[in-house]
């Protein structure tokens, strides 16, 4: 990609979407200019609230993000969304299908949605996601939301690059044995039971029982939502805000 990197960086920081899009592609493709990009970004980091959203395929992550983004926009916050979907282990191809759930934001200048293929990474995100989040942060987004590949158990890479991790489950996902296993349940800051109308209370009880037996210092809150029907989104948004304030508080103390 023969492009003037400094011009692209300046463009991205002043709101030019194709420049920002191009930078994201350059980090995805491991372009020779990546170090230059990261250097320019590094001095502008730390403003954005970073939220990771993970959970099994079909649990409603994208729809939940769609509604959360609407809540953020109603507060005047600008949002960057990164959606990771799986690359084929056979051909390397991918269908990046999360964006389509966020259609109401297509024409909103305050929302930038970027799809990324996992490209052989198996932790639920791709190698470039960390850098992409930094680029969004530096370009002035108030919130960056990252949606992982639909995963069940081991994909916890996301927790290392975000402030708050949401685990999205749906009724029918499994019994208490599943909840005892190691993995994402250990690291989630908030557990969301989406599609709660299909039996959310039962799953919430099982989760709380198991969490009560765990040695974790503090149990994460369990919040029931029906993203499609826009139910429970306010509760979830409030919880995210509380956590953001905690982060800011901690950052000030440091």
């Amino acid at each position, binding site marked *: 990609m023969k492009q003037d990197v400094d011009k692209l960086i300046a463009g991205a920081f002043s709101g030019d979407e*194709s420049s920002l899009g191009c930078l994201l592609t350059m980090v995805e493709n491991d372009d020779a200019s990546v170090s230059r990009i990261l250097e320019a970004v590094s001095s502008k980091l730390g403003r954005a609230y970073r939220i990771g959203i993970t959970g099994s395929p079909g649990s409603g992550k994208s729809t939940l993000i769609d509604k959360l983004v609407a809540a953020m926009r109603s507060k005047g916050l600008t949002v960057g969304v990164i959606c990771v979907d799986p690359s084929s282990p056979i051909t390397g*191809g991918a269908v*990046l299908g999360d964006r389509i759930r966020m259609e109401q934001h297509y024409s909103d200048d305050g929302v930038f949605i970027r799809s990324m*293929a996992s490209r052989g990474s198996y932790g639920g995100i791709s190698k470039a996601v960390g850098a992409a989040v930094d680029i969004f942060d530096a370009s002035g987004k108030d919130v960056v939301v990252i949606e992982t590949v639909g995963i069940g158990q081991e994909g916890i890479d996301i927790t290392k690059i975000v402030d708050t991790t949401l685990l999205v489950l749906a009724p029918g996902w499994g019994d208490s044995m599943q909840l005892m296993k190691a993995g994402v349940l250990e690291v989630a800051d908030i557990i969301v039971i989406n599609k709660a109308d299909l039996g959310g209370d039962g799953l919430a009880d099982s989760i709380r029982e198991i969490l009560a037996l765990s040695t974790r210092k503090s149990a994460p809150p369990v919040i029931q939502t029906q993203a499609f029907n826009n139910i429970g989104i306010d509760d979830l948004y409030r919880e995210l805000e509380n956590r953001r304030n905690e982060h800011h508080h901690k950052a000030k103390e440091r």
Partner: protein
Amino acid sequence: MSKPIKVLIAKPGLDGHDRGAITLAMGLRDEGMEVIYTGLRQTAENIVRTCSQEYVDVLGLSLLSGGHNYYFPKIIDLLKENGMGHVLVLAGGIIPNEDRKSLKEKGIKEIFGPGTPISEIADFIRKNIKGEDS
């Protein structure tokens, strides 16, 4: 798996038929490309914004409702205005022969009708894309 080709398949305007668009999206996936589908009934502005945000190499426009002479030139102009003039723009759907010449002059690189093998489209993309490996 270095630098897969990134493609947006888009449905501009009031056209409710996307079997072809979905078939092509999955076919190009199987050809090793990263494919995004916009969903139905998109405005020209939203399609071009998606091109910018996703920074795609290829835009495939599918239209079966007769609005191509309005939408396709508008999209080409908007791509240029938004720094995305390098995107390879292809079209498919129901495009009458008499409209093809003017659309190609406007910047649609090729028009593929119903029945075109996916491999033919994939090969065309690989041959015509600028500055990218495949």
